[in-house]
């Protein structure tokens, strides 16, 4: 992009626009079925972030930042970790200190101890997915923005 205006490619943009929601849907599928099938929070989060990366590659960085603003990015990257740690804390709170940290069975989602453990794992996977998605997107945006910034600085400096 050194002084040149980037070319708009209709095919690339259209395909990216069509694919992005399907990638996100697949990521949600991987996260939600993380306890039953292969996959889980880490994988699903990275797949979700790849939708943002595809959008930035096909369009531009500022458009991608508009879709996923910095404030939301910071919020989500810590929110997933809060969910995880909060579930662990809930198991202490619901038993008034009798159960250990991260012992999901004692959180009364249902009446069955084992079902509670399964549901606790589901929520933990969702928390992992949110954090991984936000952090991966954040790192990508930072690296891409750094390159653009350097190029802008080079242009401004007189040779």
């Amino acid at each position: 992009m050194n002084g040149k205006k980037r070319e708009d490619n209709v095919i690339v943009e259209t395909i990216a626009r069509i694919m992005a929601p399907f990638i996100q849907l697949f990521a949600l599928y991987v996260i939600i079925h993380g306890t039953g099938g292969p996959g889980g929070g880490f994988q699903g989060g990275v797949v979700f972030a790849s939708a943002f990366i595809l959008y930035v590659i096909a369009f531009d960085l500022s458009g991608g930042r508009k879709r996923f603003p910095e404030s939301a990015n910071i919020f989500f990257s810590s929110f997933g970790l809060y969910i995880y740690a909060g579930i662990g804390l809930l198991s202490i709170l619901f038993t008034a200190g009798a159960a250990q940290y991260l012992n999901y069975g004692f959180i009364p989602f249902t009446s069955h101890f084992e079902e509670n453990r399964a549901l606790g794992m589901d929520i933990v996977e969702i928390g992992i997915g949110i954090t991984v998605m936000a952090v991966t997107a954040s790192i990508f945006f930072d690296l891409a923005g750094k390159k653009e910034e350097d190029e802008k600085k080079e242009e401004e400096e007189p040779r």
Partner: protein
Amino acid sequence: MNKLEVAALVPIILLCGLFVYVAEDIPVFGDPNAAPIRYVEIFSIDSDEEGELLEQQIVPQKLTRGLVERGFPPPSRLEKVPGPPGEWNAFIAKDEAHYAREEKYYFIRREKGKLKVYRYAFVVRWIEKGLQETAVPNMVTYGLADYRGYDTLGETTVIFTAGVSVILLLRRRSRL
């Protein structure tokens, strides 16, 4: 060193001392009766005569036959568990299949005229009892999110820390 640095150093050292003191007071991770650390029951013998043989550190014939019938290696040696009476550890011999050393393998307990035979094996318990204990069919997931939940919490924290580090290093054009 100026006055401010010394004044900062004192609370830091005090805080370190407090952390060490608190960490010493916290019990070690996991209790010995937690699900993954217990043993798996194999079978039980109804009569109590074998108990007398066990008291004399002799491996009863009935026990060996029952284990071999079920496809387990025969026990070679017995040892009394220190503490409550009526509990023994059984060892399998050196050079048994898949085991290069002598291994503590069985746990025998006397209960109301019965001898219950258990097997020590974390992996076996993980495979056989995991679905029953957590209602999740995926072996990897209940390992990752339940039995080793602390580990995964730490991994997620590592990823979060990496993201924050990249923000601090590269994003200098604006505030956070």
